[in-house]
């Protein structure tokens, strides 16, 4: 997708912020040098070839702090090309600090257009949500991952978790869920619900709510995951089985909102955030996916309906 830019060494000026133009020859296109992009792309290919398997990569220093989406950002920069349309969300919102900063940075170093419209985007970098509108085959979803290892919860040793993955020995994770049920009579895992990918690898779907876990199964779009601090890339290719761990008598369930609807757009079939009114102390609910909410309001949709495609022929 990327145009190979000229690879020339240069000293960044003191005030690099104001003088960092897109692809002026002093920097490689999309910030990362061609060697780094090439390595990340090759790691991504391996991750796609073994769905759910964590592939190590040489995570680069980025101009944002570790833990603020450096993993997702590196994938985005390695994939992006001039004709791409970028959308960045942070827990469903297009306009939160993390999302805005990443968007600004990518635009500055590549000059690509950004959008809030899920349908129009070709690359979507996300933190902890999957957009409400169904994704389509040409789209790529990039997740920012804090802890890529689903077994870290039950096993601190990396050596041991690697052995467990190699032998498909996931009984400890099942045991964790069993104990949860014995203690609380339900599975209390909210976000980061462990999933089985392609019936082989246990995978951490990043801290998306259970609501979004089902969207990964047999998805149309390519889902890429990257943890910059932990230096791991993994992927769920399109049309891959993604099954949350579930017992016969305690099945996986998504969040229930008890028939509540979004206070702004009136939708019912979306993941809702609880908003507490500071003045009255009352509770209202609104869509976590702000772009979807906005679109639904513009179209004055009947509750539960999805908005029509904008700008389609």
């Amino acid at each position, binding site marked *: 997708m990327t145009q190979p830019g000229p690879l020339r060494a240069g000293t960044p000026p003191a005030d690099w912020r104001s003088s960092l133009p897109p692809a002026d020859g002093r920097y490689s296109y999309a910030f990362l040098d061609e060697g780094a992009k090439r390595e990340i792309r090759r790691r991504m290919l391996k991750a796609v070839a073994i769905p759910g398997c964590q592939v190590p990569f040489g995570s680069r220093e980025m101009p944002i702090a570790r833990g603020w989406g450096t993993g997702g950002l590196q994938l985005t920069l390695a994939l992006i090309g001039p004709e791409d349309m970028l959308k960045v969300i942070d827990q469903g919102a297009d306009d939160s600090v993390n999302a805005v900063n990443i968007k600004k940075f990518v635009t500055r170093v590549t000059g690509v257009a950004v959008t809030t419209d899920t349908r129009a985007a070709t690359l979507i970098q996300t933190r902890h949500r999957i957009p409400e509108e169904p994704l389509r085959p040409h789209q790529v979803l990039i997740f920012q991952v804090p802890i890529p290892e689903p077994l870290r919860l039950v096993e601190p040793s990396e050596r041991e978790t690697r052995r467990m993955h190699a032998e498909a020995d996931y*009984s400890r994770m099942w045991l964790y869920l069993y104990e949860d049920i014995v203690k609380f009579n339900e599975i209390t895992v909210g976000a980061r619900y462990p999933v089985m990918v392609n019936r082989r690898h246990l995978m951490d779907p990043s801290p998306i709510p259970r609501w979004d876990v089902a969207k990964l199964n047999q998805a149309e779009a390519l889902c890429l995951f990257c943890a910059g601090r932990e230096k791991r890339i993994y992927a769920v290719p399109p049309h891959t089985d993604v099954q949350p761990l579930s017992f016969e008598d305690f099945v996986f369930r998504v969040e229930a909102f008890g028939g509540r609807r979004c206070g702004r757009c009136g939708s019912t079939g979306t993941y809702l955030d609880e908003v507490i009114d500071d003045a009255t102390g009352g509770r209202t609910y609104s869509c976590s996916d702000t772009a979807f909410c906005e679109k639904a309001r513009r179209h004055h949709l009947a509750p539960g309906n999805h908005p029509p495609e904008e700008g389609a022929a």
Partner: protein
Amino acid sequence: MKPILQVRNLTKRYGKGCPDCLERTGPPHATNQCPRCRSVLACRAVDFALYPGEVLGIVGESGSGKSTVVRLLHFDFEPTAGDFFLRLNGNGAAPIDPAQNLFALSAFQRRQIRNERMGIVYQSARMGLRMKVSAGGNIAERLLMAGGRHVGRMRDRATELLAQTEVPVQRVDELPRTFSGGMQQRVQIAKALSTRPALLLLDEVTTGLDVSVQARVLDLIRSLQQELGVATIVVSHDLGVIRLLTSRTVVMRHGCIVEEGLSDQILEDPQHPYTQLLVNSTL
């Protein structure tokens, strides 16, 4: 009758080893540490067989290599050399080729055989149980590994096993670290029996328990063993345990088997000087 378990030339060496190791260690030299290279031969060239339904005792002093032998059979660590064959049928698990050396299998296959065919009870409950997981969960872990996916049924089976091993069933969801030593051993036994194994390994099960609890645990093991007919290897330094449980015994010293025979024979008419010393030194 064909043996269900056959071990040949089982050797475990800690350290680099040298050409002199085998000649300079063992009972004639009264050490299992090579004086030249300082390697320790925990067990060397151990051969024995186990027949269906039989209880075999392994007896010897501390450091004689008896625990090493059973833990090698449980695939807890890798042997330096040796062959291990199992001829087991039934219990619905995948069949094992009797001519296949199990030490040569992949870690995945060995884990599967261990989970489906073997149960082990360690001297310390900390090795056999997860102290931060409930007693029922400890038992369920083996069922989960074998593919159990129904919480209710697994918990029922855990309760049933705890009743069988005389642990108060209302404590099924409590942590084993709140249990007494004897109860922890019983939970270990319940865990070992959860997948209906064909081979039970008992590694100093009653050491560290007080005498009255020892008697009850041994009684339980004996009655369960007779009821289930599971072939068992009992490791102990306590001749009382050997007398009570086993029909045949091997005596180990400095990593070697020095005497082998029917338990009564060994206890009444020991041939090897070391066995004579062992029998005579009981309180």
